[in-house]
């Protein structure tokens, strides 16, 4: 099985007619994802290599039965794109766009929580989600993933997500679902949401978690792992050498005062019983050992 998406997920791309939206929308379709529609208010009635373009998400959903949305629109338009998708009845919204203002994302996260409690948001500033062989929404290169499980992956970083997929695939270890939650301060879906779903998913038997400096989500995840998880968790945290007070690329990757350091996160996860690795390659090796003993 997989979490959040599967082979029946039908996806509308908000921003399909832009260059990145087109490139990845077509790649996702070629992978086997049901890419059913795109939106652009000025180009309704056109198509992108056979994918119909609608004026808005509501029309796209009415015509195609889309259940998920993938957002590629530029940062200034993300808030209204998210609300448009939710109002149209989309249940799973993936925001790839980076550089969304923190005020916008704090507002639309809380508006969704309040007005559309059943809608799940993933991102912003994330690579998306892939359930190998079933569905790939976003910018992950599908060829580096291998289906069949037993490992679920959850990561704050895009490229480290690919790295993890790649390490496991090279070792012949399959993945159930790989979720990139994104590096922003207010992620729509967090570590605990994914750990909870992986714990419930019978095909996922071990979890790879990739965190980084900043915030306290990894510490909260440690608490969840300690009390709620029976499946083994292998962890890598990036940013051991990051200086305090400096934003390391991601808006959320900053050590504030003494909180948010990689060391503190690794300690919390280690004492929660997770296997903590010091680099992505070692994480792959540790996972191989864990999987061999399942």
């Amino acid at each position: 099985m997989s979490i959040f998406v599967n082979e029946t997920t039908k996806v509308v791309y908000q921003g399909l007619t832009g260059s990145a939206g087109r490139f990845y929308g077509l790649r996702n379709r070629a992978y086997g994802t049901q890419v059913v529609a795109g939106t652009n208010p000025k180009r309704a009635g056109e198509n992108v290599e056979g994918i119909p373009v609608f004026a808005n998400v509501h029309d796209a959903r009415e015509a195609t039965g889309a259940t998920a949305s993938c957002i590629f629109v530029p940062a200034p338009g993300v808030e209204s794109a998210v609300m448009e998708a939710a109002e149209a009845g989309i249940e799973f919204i993936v925001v790839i766009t980076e550089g969304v203002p923190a005020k916008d994302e704090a507002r639309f996260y809380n508006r969704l929580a309040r007005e559309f409690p059943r809608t799940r948001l993933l991102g912003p500033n994330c690579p998306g989600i892939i359930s190998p062989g079933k569905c790939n929404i976003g910018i992950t290169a599908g060829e580096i993933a291998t289906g069949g499980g037993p490992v679920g992956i959850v990561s704050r970083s895009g490229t480290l997500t690919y790295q993890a997929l790649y390490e496991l695939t090279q070792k012949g270890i399959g993945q159930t679902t790989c979720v990139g939650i994104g590096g922003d301060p207010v992620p729509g879906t967090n570590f605990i949401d994914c750990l909870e779903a992986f714990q419930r998913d019978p095909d996922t038997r071990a979890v790879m978690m990739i965190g980084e400096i900043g915030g306290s989500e990894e510490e909260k995840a440690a608490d969840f792992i300690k009390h709620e998880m029976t499946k083994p968790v292998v962890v890598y945290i990036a940013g051991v050498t990051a200086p305090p007070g400096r934003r390391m690329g991601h808006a959320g990757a900053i050590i504030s005062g003494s909180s948010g350091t990689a060391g503190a996160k690794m300690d919390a996860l280690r004492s929660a019983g997770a296997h903590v690795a010091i680099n992505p390659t070692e994480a792959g090796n540790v996972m191989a050992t864990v999987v061999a003993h399942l």
Partner: protein
Amino acid sequence: MDLFEYQGKQYFARYGIPVSPGGVAQTVDEAISAADAAGYPVVIKAQVQVGGRGKAGGIKLASNASEVRHHASNILGMDIRGHVVQRVWVERASDIKAEYYASFTLDRAARMHLAMVSKEGGIDIEHVAATNPGAIIRRHIDPAIGLTHADAVDIIHSAGIDEEARSGAVSILELLYKCYVEGDADLVEINPLILTPDGRIHALDAKVTLDDNASFRHPEWAAFDGTESSDPREQMARERGLQYVGLDGSVGIIANGAGLAMSTLDVVNQVGGTPANFLDIGGGASAAVMANALEVVNSDPNVKAIFINIFGGITRGEEVANGIVTALGRVTITSPIVVRLDGTNAVEGRAILKAHESDRLISRPTMVEAAQAAVAFAAH
């Protein structure tokens, strides 16, 4: 982006938050003009982004022009914990009857905004939090609703702000929230917020951190460019729109994705090297972006080797390879380059690199091997 106090006060003023009349000065003469305009007595304050400037002698009171000349000439150019004072803020001195604290920031764990108000202002709020936590009122503000007038009244009353200051404090708290949200700040902090003997209330200090992601809707932020960082490498990177943090090692780092860039720093460290920088060229990086990145890293005299670590997702391998080749044709790269390229279209990318390989440009298949090669180059 962290603003200096004077910029923070100018930003507060845009949103109607009262501050003392004053002006910024880069020379002694400018300081005297600012003092004349503000009215004596004045306070001269060193503009540095580091705490403890008062103790270091960076804040002085002056009651006439000759005292301004004396203090401003001492403070300008002063080194405060590694920060050289380039500007002073000169403002009319205030009589203080009471000092309070007010701030807004994002509470990431709660995914809501956090208001903090205390009647114990004028000292480090973390000190108050440690010694007298009951003196700080903390309230979450739902970003979908915002701060209501009733919230502001409740927060100010709960914090025990003196009665004569309450209505002024409520209105400043509402303006501060407006500055925080409409002004796209990650942090707005007034410490101290003061009550004067004649019953007026205003911000005596200003701490503002702007959300860089919101710069597209704030053309007025252009005035803050170039005043933040004293590191010429960071200045150069900012002009090129790159996510760069200067460090002091010898291996220049270029990676795509913040997580991979941080991880690259960690791996270089683990194999015995020292990273010279953090540089994330981001998703969708083109040949031009890669060329810019190489130019910035190459400008660092401490760099002895460059490690380019790319895993292709949104950045396609052939774009990366073409970027490196283009950059090599555009600038003379002084250090050897080690490339590790994988992911989307990596095969095409590696073929392009192969055609240009030399003893100054090599590629390695894994992160650890590439880090080892770069560290070995840096050691020679």
